[in-house]
């Protein structure tokens, strides 16, 4: 095994184009996730994907705002809702489609599926909470090995129910792990609203362990980016673990067709808290249209390519 940290994340598999400014890069990043996820949801009924999916629609600004500033040695651990994180990290859209379709060309050759990805320094797992100590251990390893890397781990509001999260927070604080805990609070876990599952305070869960925490209620990548930058800076300066509580909105179902919220509530969220809509006006309309077209083409191309890829051959499996 080798840990590959040679190529910068966030650069793979993009279409080539004119040099972009930051607003455009952010927009492209969010739009890629949005269109990818919409394509997944749209095509699910065709039976071409295995298992289920948890789309990131509505939360794109988080992944892009944070992960666009990682450096090659940095490490990311994500959860069940990992497509957006993976794409923002720089993961291949084609390989992600292929993984969801169970193809040999998928991120993990079809073994992992939607929730279990690994590429370069990006990892995800589908067991809630259990990834938090793992990510903490990764951060400690980077610290001991003096790589200067920061580790970012994502968790949802509902995942605060898992005890192992607190075990990890305690150790991260005791041992000053260079890690950023990103709590994406979309106020719901599967179908359970936050008030039925999370008592007390979100920030208190971190500060009880003496982990500095910043809270931000925004779907604007332009607001999220600098806050993440500050926290990552603290981490890189050796100031130990940091937490970012991002109040955000899940627009879609938890997985598929399982949204029990009122449609007015969802429409209201989509009107006021859409990261793509919030950011779009900052772009030159022509550039925006060009990016939209490029993204549409990229997604369609990746989808088509993945769909034509071969399934893995069970007979090739070495360790059985």
């Amino acid at each position, binding site marked *: 095994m080798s840990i590959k940290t040679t190529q910068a994340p966030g650069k793979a598999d993009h279409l080539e184009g004119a040099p972009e400014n930051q607003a455009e890069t952010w927009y492209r990043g969010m739009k890629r996730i949005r269109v990818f996820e919409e394509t997944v949801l749209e095509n699910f009924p065709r039976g071409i*994907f*295995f*298992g*289920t999916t948890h789309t990131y629609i509505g939360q794109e600004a988080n992944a892009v705002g944070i992960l666009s500033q990682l450096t090659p040695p940095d490490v990311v651990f994500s959860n069940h809702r990992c497509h957006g994180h993976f794409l923002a990290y720089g993961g291949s859209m084609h390989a992600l489609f292929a*993984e969801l379709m*169970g*193809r040999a060309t*998928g991120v993990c*050759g*079809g*073994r*992992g*599926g*939607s*929730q*279990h990805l690994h590429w370069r320094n990006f990892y995800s*797992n*589908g*067991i*809630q*909470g259990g990834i938090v100590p793992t990510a903490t251990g990764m951060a400690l390893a980077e610290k001991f090995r003096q790589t200067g890397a920061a580790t970012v781990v994502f968790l949802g509001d*509902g*995942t*605060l*129910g*898992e*005890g192992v999260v607190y075990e990890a927070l305690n150790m991260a604080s005791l041992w000053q792990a260079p890690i950023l805990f990103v709590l994406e609070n979309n106020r719901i*876990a*599967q*179908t*359970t609203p936050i008030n*039925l*599952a*999370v008592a007390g305070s979100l920030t208190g869960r971190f500060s009880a362990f003496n982990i500095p925490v910043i809270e931000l209620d925004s779907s604007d990548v332009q607001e999220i980016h600098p806050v993440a930058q500050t926290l990552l800076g603290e981490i890189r300066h050796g100031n130990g673990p940091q937490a970012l509580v991002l109040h955000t909105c899940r627009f879609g179902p938890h997985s598929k067709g*399982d949204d*029990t919220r009122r449609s007015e509530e969802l429409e209201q969220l989509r009107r006021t808290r859409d990261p793509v809509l919030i950011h779009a006006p900052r772009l030159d309309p022509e550039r925006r249209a060009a990016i939209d077209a490029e993204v549409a083409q990229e997604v369609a191309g990746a989808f088509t390519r993945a769909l034509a890829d071969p*399934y*893995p*051959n*069970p007979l090739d*499996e070495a*360790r*059985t």
Partner: protein
Amino acid sequence: MTTVLASLNQALHRCLAENDLVFLLGEDVLDPYGGAFKVSRGLSSQYPGRVLTTPISEAGIVGVAAGMALRGMRPVVEIMFGDFLTLAADQIINHLAKYRWMYNEQVRVPVIIRTPMGGRRGYGPTHSQTLEKHFLGAPGLQVLAPTTAGNPGALLSSAILDAEDPTLFIENKLQYLEPVLDGENRGEFEIQELGETFSYRLTVNGAPPAVLTLAAYGYMADLARKAMLSLAYEDEIFTELVIPTRLAPLEISPILDSARKTGQLLVIEEGALTLGWGAEVLARLAETDRLHLRNCRRLAGKDTPIPASGPLEDATLPGVTDIQDTVRKMLQP
């Protein structure tokens, strides 16, 4: 036609109606969702105070249920996917299953933990497993698995209302939609309930004496009976199937009795082979003096995690044709 899902759901309704001390705890169990696999549908509307949707805290809710049971209640816990039982392993093994015995029989801990196991839906390595084998040998723990050959709901409700010990109730995602083989739709099968053994024996109607015994539980028993039918019709190979519904403590005699008669035994399970339920069955068989079968085998999931990709998953878990092939192979001279 009643499905396993409907049978279980109705049983939960009955139990909550019958005994005020029955409570339900689980993630996302409230209506209209009614739990990830809908087994709990309708309960929170009908018994709002007694159905608690919980945080994502598998260990914690099992522990809370233990406390309720120690103080006289009869809680039912739904664990959303059987894969997450591992999170409650300490609660189950070092708390629930021990209290009665270590407190010198002064208490009972009637907690029922329901959970769906199983793959074949492409959910991948953490949402497709059949993990009950890791719990089967824990002293003090009862493990049940419903079968379409019996009455899934009755098995569940008798556990909820009468069990004295903590109980894992192992369901299966694909089994939910199978029809219960009651009166009208037993179709080609003859089903015999084997008295006090929590087991059933299933044969093909009007078939000659069986030459091989199949043993399987849960959804795997449904696949086994499909294999039985085509073995009978296509290959004229006649088998009988023994289906236990109580895996721990296990009453082995129905399986041994049948195997003694047919001389051959195939034990089938979906979980990964090593130290699965079948190991205990074959070990007890091997320990039985003078029971030298011509042939005995296990057919089980491969000893790997379960892949998401369909073709890989198919090759990992035993299916109907794998059963047929294995039986044919066992009968080759």
